[in-house]
């Protein structure tokens, strides 16, 4: 297993139980690693929720004219399923892994703004909880994850559900923008000496690109949802055609954000795969700069194709042609990535660990999803396929076959680093194959059902359309898929408790996070490494197998395994920011204020309209001010210039 043992005489492992558990150390943490873990755990919990919603939908669709669910319940389920999976699963899972790994990879001791980082996680959790609170207060949002106008106006969506949607996503949106800024600054400004942009690991590169996409794309969504909220709360009518508003404006604003969003979901995962393949091929990535810059190109192109979700809206042939052509161009940089990945494996020594299998599975399934994306990008073809199950197939091939499989790859790869334990590789492989088979059983037939005319977002369908057989297969597949997820859950829990201890570098990898113990001490690096090449650790281990790398040379560096913990001499001198509850106060306050905002024009708790709302808003604002005060006080404690004056 531990390949590195050949080179590191006695694989010293650092005890993972270094601190013992305390609530305070988690809730008030500003450590990027703990925050990363919270992200991952919460996102996984939401994955199970979103998955259960999917299972319920699939049971309903398993037979024609089924009556397992009512129409409205089904509509709530698919809305919450997609909203959950996109905003509460893949995004935070990417952010979580990024939070943990990116600072390690660039040789930093934390994110650039640790407190802001903590604010992001609690805002995200607040937003997610707010969204799910809607189930208990009269029904979850039911207008679909892209919430097309004017269905979201008060007269068609009465009640508070849509307001929950807007404000819940609003909070996670702030969290995302704050996180994006944090990543940008961390990657650009917190790199270890010698870690030039040209030597940045590709996972870090993709996180950088994605962070830019986030801060460029979210504002339009923020504006659109503010306007929607004003429509609903103050009679604004921006998206209400009956009063002079424009229904298409919502679509344009939403997809101007929504399409870049899908690259927010996939690019970090592509970054992970670009780390995993070289490690297990025991070769450097093929064409580093092509892979990096194709990510930049995808990110850029992602901003000029949004209206390919709107070919059917009558924008006219010129606009359709533009968005159609631009969308297809994305096949080129994506193809570059895929071919370079294959070339990375070519003539390598492929170690098919579970992580590697998942990475290969990712490529394999993403090819299918990408190709179906190209057919959708052809505007005439799209007119037949849009809003049919063909789109549902496409989106699951890229989201599940892409993002989720890639996240499993990343999960298996970094689990030892994060927990200090190895996952059971054998069980992992069984799970991998089960997942591959059941994934295809669940989602491949959707291509066919869609081609046979099955519209999406229908809770029931007639018998005799030829769709039953595919739907039955899909439903069976779903249960197997759920089983495979359960298997992973079992594996993870079992391994955290009693898995084999992980050494610093169980995979014989090449990036900086593997030079320090698993899990790393709170300060990460005792000695901040000096980087002299793209594969600092590899080149230190194998000075004779470096190759003709364009961007680096194996000059001697101080990169070597560190075996340290909190008690190591010198560790105490490393100043890390202190614990603080201020981010929790702030985000708690914002969440409660948001709850109040939902009820500005509605009754709640039997109180007259507005009263409860104002109460909530007032409490929220007070909490925000408490948070700001605590923030200032706590940050003074960390500043050498201010604490001395007290």
């Amino acid at each position, binding site marked *: 297993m531990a390949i590195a043992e050949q080179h590191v005489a006695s694989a010293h492992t650092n005890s993972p139980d270094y601190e013992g558990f305390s609530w305070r150390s988690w809730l008030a943490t500003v450590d990027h690693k703990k925050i990363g873990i919270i992200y991952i755990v919460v996102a996984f919990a939401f994955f199970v929720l979103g998955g259960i919603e999917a299972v319920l939908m699939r049971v309903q669709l398993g037979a024609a004219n089924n009556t397992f669910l009512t129409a409205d319940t089904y509509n709530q389920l698919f809305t919450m399923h997609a909203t959950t999976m996109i905003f509460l699963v893949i995004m935070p899972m990417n952010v979580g892994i990024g939070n943990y790994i990116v600072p390690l990879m660039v040789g930093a001791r934390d994110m650039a703004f640790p407190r802001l980082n903590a604010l992001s996680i609690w805002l995200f959790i607040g937003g997610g909880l707010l969204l799910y609170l809607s189930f208990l207060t009269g029904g979850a949002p039911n207008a679909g994850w892209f919430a097309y106008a004017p269905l979201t106006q008060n007269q068609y969506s009465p009640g508070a559900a849509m307001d929950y949607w807007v404000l819940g996503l609003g909070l996670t949106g702030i969290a995302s923008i704050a996180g994006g800024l944090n990543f940008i600054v961390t990657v650009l400004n917190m790199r270890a000496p010698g*870690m030039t*942009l040209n030597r940045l690991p590709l996972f870090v590169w993709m996180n950088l690109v994605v962070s*830019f996409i986030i801060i460029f794309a979210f504002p339009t969504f923020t504006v659109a949802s503010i306007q929607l909220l004003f429509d609903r709360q103050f009679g604004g009518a921006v998206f209400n055609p009956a009063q002079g508003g424009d229904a298409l404006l919502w679509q344009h604003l939403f997809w101007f954000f929504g399409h870049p969003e899908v690259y927010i979901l996939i690019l970090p995962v592509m970054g992970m795969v670009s780390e995993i393949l070289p490690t297990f091929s025991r070769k450097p990535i093929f064409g580093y700069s092509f892979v990096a810059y194709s990510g930049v190109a995808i990110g850029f192109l992602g901003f000029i194709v949004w209206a390919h979700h709107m070919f059917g809206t009558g*924008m*006219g*042939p010129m606009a*359709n042609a533009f968005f159609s052509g631009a969308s297809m161009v994305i096949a080129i940089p994506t193809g570059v990535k895929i071919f370079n990945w294959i070339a990375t494996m070519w003539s390598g020594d492929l170690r098919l660990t579970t992580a590697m299998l998942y990475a290969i599975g990712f490529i394999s399934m993403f090819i299918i999803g990408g190709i179906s994306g190209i057919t959708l990008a052809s505007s005439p073809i799209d007119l037949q396929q849009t809003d049919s199950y063909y789109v549902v197939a496409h989106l699951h091939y890229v989201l599940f076959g892409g993002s989720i499989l890639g996240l499993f790859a990343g999960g298996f790869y970094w689990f030892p680093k994060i927990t200090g334990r190895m996952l059971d590789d054998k069980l992992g492989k069984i799970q991998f194959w089960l997942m591959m088979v059941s994934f295809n059983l669940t989602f491949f037939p959707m291509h066919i059902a869609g081609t046979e005319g099955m519209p999406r977002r229908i809770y029931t369908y007639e018998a005799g359309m030829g769709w039953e057989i595919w739907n039955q297969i899909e439903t069976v597949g779903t249960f197997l898929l759920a089983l495979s997820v359960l298997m992973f859950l079992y594996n993870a829990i079992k391994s955290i408790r009693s898995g084999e201890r992980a050494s610093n570098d169980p995979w014989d990898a090449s990036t900086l996070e593997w030079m320090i113990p698993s899990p790393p001490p709170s300060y990460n690096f005792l000695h901040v490494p000096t980087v002299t090449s793209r594969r600092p650790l590899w080149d230190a281990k194998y000075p004779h197998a470096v190759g003709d790398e364009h961007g680096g040379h194996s000059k001697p560096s101080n990169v070597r395994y560190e075996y340290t913990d909190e008690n190591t001499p010198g560790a105490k001198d490393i100043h890390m920011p202190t614990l603080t509850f201020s981010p929790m106060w702030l985000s708690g306050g914002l969440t409660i204020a948001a709850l109040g905002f939902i009820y500005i024009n509605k009754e709640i708790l039997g109180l007259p309209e507005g009263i409860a709302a104002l109460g909530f808003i007032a409490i929220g604002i007070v909490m925000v001010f408490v948070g700001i005060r605590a923030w200032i006080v706590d940050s003074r404690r960390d500043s050498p210039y201010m604490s001395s004056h007290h």
Partner: protein
Amino acid sequence: MAEHVAHDDHSVAHESHSTKFYWMIGGILAVVTALEVGIFLVESSFSATMFLVILLGLALIKGAGVIAFFMHLRGDAKIFQFVFLVPLLFAFSLCLGFLKLFSNHVGIAG
């Protein structure tokens, strides 16, 4: 993106201007504003496009003045220019794209 060697300070040394210089910029911006208002008041003596072009041009000068001198983006680190001007470019294209898309109502999916 520009390649920066870690931990060297060469890009931060943006020049500090004299107080007089800021007053001058402020004065120029005030003059441009006055010009804008003046042109607005005599709107009818320009053709519509002319009016548009002049006003947009003046606004651009004002904006550029604020960004370049008050915010010191001119001469400051390249990375600041990158993280601000790129989204600004996106924003401009968003505006133009949307105005174009919403200016005609073809009504054919094609």
